[in-house]
């Protein structure tokens, strides 16, 4: 199919998106007004705008009419370090709310060179297929021999079939089975949270492949190259040392020391075997290599080998990328203190295409239900590594009780009943990441209000909890302002797109971001405009959720955090009244009503079109 060009390219952007119906094979190039690009940038912001424009909020996320968007950004393809990233935006089958997840590397670069700022997928193919996008050509081709293959195997087979110039975003067996927290994977990195893999699987699409030659130009190329050199130099400095030395896994012992490491389904804040899972120990007891995404100078990926050799071949097993969230979710949260099991479980999630946080959270919840005698699955015990691997395998295949666990902890709690929702570790259905809310209470606020659900990427409110003068065990109403600011910064970074691991190198984040954006696009952007852009993006996400059925009762935490202290720290307990007061303060800071609704005039002031859908 040849797609007719309907727009003109501006600096940094193509000014159009591609809409592909994989059921009818119809394709359409849709223009994006430059004003809208400036208002929403790219990545998460632009994806939110496009989904609102496409009326995706009221559609069942697994229905053929559902939309899934791969979204690039003005900075993709620029020399700025960490800019090779893309967003995957859709309505989540796990939360039924907006889901924007990010992944990295060459898919972003190749995808933007197809000539589009975003590629939207809708419809449902008649049989398992792949989508190929090359410059202005689109093909939807049935595939044989790929369905059922792991994520890494799929990418390898696609390279063999279509050549190395294509870059592929793929789903694994979990996405095919529409596991509600299945991922979309590229080169071993996952657009992990919220189940975008299930959305693609529901369309019978195994992979989207991109290859192109259409580069955008930059408004001030000489200055951009100089700025890129400066940014790269800073990226080698002390602000990013943690990521080079130990990676995000460096969080483990710190959070353990603060009684903030979620353990055994959030019943404890410290784990006796944390040292065994720590990168400090693994660095000296097993092989490790480092890797990085394309166009990244930080190199945060730490790949660890298993301590044993393959029984069949006698060879050292392939390494596994390990992040803090894997260590927590598949380690302490499930009571697993054996690093080999955590590495195997991580690798299994990578192969199946499963979000490790949701997998670990759902399994840990299930383990507690079993322990309490509320679910008859006697083999699923805390601390049992074989049980963890079996559970992940069955989830990925929707086999036996894996079918129930594939629905996530919220739906599993609804199935099991017995008031288990009280301790299902989720907000809006999204399982809670590795920060114990009772020990980092501003982070708890961030979890409660984030549009995606419990989320440590859209909110980094733990920064407030560990700042000078903080009171991390007592939520303060003025923490709402700080929590909102971390969301705003994240919204800009996820829309420019730049990796959040760069955040420490900026002296004046908004000013420096505005300068980089101007160098790329030519827009006369300043810091104040970007701050408003952040507000717009966060509010647009909320508006999507309202149109998708959001209610105020969703912005909270599971009852456990109010009714129970941590077993190993009796100071650690949240006050429901304090949280509700902070949530109201957060809403007021955002310009929303005290209950979190958004008035039409506020939408219009921010430049969000309220014409479709309305507040109840």
């Amino acid at each position, binding site marked *: 199919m040849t797609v007719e060009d309907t727009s003109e390219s501006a600096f940094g952007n193509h000014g159009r998106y591609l809409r592909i119906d994989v059921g009818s094979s119809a394709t359409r190039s849709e223009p994006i007004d430059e004003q809208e690009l400036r208002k929403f940038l790219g990545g998460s912001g632009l994806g939110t705008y496009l989904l609102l424009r496409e009326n995706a909020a009221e559609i069942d996320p697994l229905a053929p009419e559902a939309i899934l968007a791969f979204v690039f950004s003005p900075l993709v393809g620029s020399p700025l370090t960490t800019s090779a990233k893309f967003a995957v935006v859709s309505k989540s089958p796990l939360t039924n709310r907006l889901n924007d997840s990010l992944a990295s590397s060459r898919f972003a670069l190749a995808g933007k060179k197809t000539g589009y700022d975003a590629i939207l997928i809708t419809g449902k193919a008649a049989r398992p297929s792949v989508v190929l996008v090359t410059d202005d050509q689109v093909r939807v081709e049935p595939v044989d021999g790929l369905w059922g293959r792991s994520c890494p195997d799929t990418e390898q087979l696609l390279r063999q079939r279509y050549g190395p110039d294509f870059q592929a975003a793929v789903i694994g067996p979990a996405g095919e089975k529409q596991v509600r927290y299945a991922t979309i994977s590229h080169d071993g990195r996952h657009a992990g949270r919220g189940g975008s893999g299930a959305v693609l699987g529901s369309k019978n699409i195994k992979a989207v492949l991109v290859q192109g030659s259409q580069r955008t130009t930059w408004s001030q190329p000489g200055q951009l190259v100089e700025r890129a050199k400066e940014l790269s130099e800073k990226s080698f400095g002390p602000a990013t040392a*943690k990521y080079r030395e130990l990676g995000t896994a460096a969080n483990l012992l710190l959070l353990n020391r*603060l009684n903030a490491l979620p353990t055994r389904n959030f019943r404890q804040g410290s784990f006796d075997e944390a040292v065994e899972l720590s990168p400090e120990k693994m660095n000296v007891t097993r092989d490790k290599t480092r890797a990085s995404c394309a166009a990244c100078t930080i190199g*945060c990926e730490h790949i660890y080998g298993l301590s044993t050799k393959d029984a069949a071949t006698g060879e050292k097993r392939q390494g596994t990328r390990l992040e803090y969230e894997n260590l927590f979710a598949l380690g302490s949260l499930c009571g697993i203190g054996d690093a080999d099991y955590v590495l195997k479980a991580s690798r299994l999630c990578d192969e199946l295409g499963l979000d490790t946080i949701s997998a670990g959270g759902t399994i840990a919840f299930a383990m507690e239900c079993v322990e309490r005698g509320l679910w008859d699955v006697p083999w699923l015990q805390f601390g049992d590594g074989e049980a963890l691997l079996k559970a992940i395998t069955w989830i990925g295949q929707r086999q036996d009780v894996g079918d129930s666990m594939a629905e996530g902890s919220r739906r599993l709690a609804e199935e099991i009943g017995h008031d288990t929702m009280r301790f299902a570790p989720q907000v809006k259905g999204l399982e809670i990441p590795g920060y114990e809310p009772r020990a980092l209470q501003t982070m708890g606020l961030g979890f409660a209000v984030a549009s995606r659900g419990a989320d440590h990427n859209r909110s*980094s409110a733990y*920064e407030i909890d*560990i700042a*000078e003068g903080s009171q*991390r065990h007592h939520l303060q109403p003025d923490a709402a302002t700080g929590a909102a600011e971390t969301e705003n910064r994240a919204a800009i970074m996820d829309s420019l797109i730049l990796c959040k*691991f760069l*955040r420490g190198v900026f002296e004046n984040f908004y000013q420096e971001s505005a300068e980089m954006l101007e160098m790329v696009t030519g827009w006369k952007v300043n810091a104040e405009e970007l701050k408003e852009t952040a507000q717009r993006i966060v509010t647009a996400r909320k508006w999507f959720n309202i149109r998708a059925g959001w209610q105020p009762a969703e912005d909270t935490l599971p009852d456990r955090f109010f009714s129970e202290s941590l077993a190993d720290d009796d100071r650690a307990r949240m006050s429901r009244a304090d949280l509700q007061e902070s949530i109201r303060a957060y809403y007021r800071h955002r310009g929303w009503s005290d209950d979190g609704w958004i008035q039409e005039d506020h939408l219009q002031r921010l430049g969000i079109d309220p014409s479709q859908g309305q507040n109840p």
Partner: protein
Amino acid sequence: MCVTAGPEGIRLCDIFAQLTRQSPGLADACFDQGALRTEYLASIDGETFVTDSQVMVLPGQSLLLFSADAGG
């Protein structure tokens, strides 16, 4: 690591000085002219988070030094 303090405690800057003598590698990484670099944070007993190097740490208290870029 243990540091030597008087009965009334010890200032953070003096703790830093002792630490760099015990572990010289910490000097460049964590400290700048006797003060903690902005890329690091100090916490007393995991409860109080401080940047002022004149803050007193009392006998029996523990000091935690960690990357200010927590999370990830």
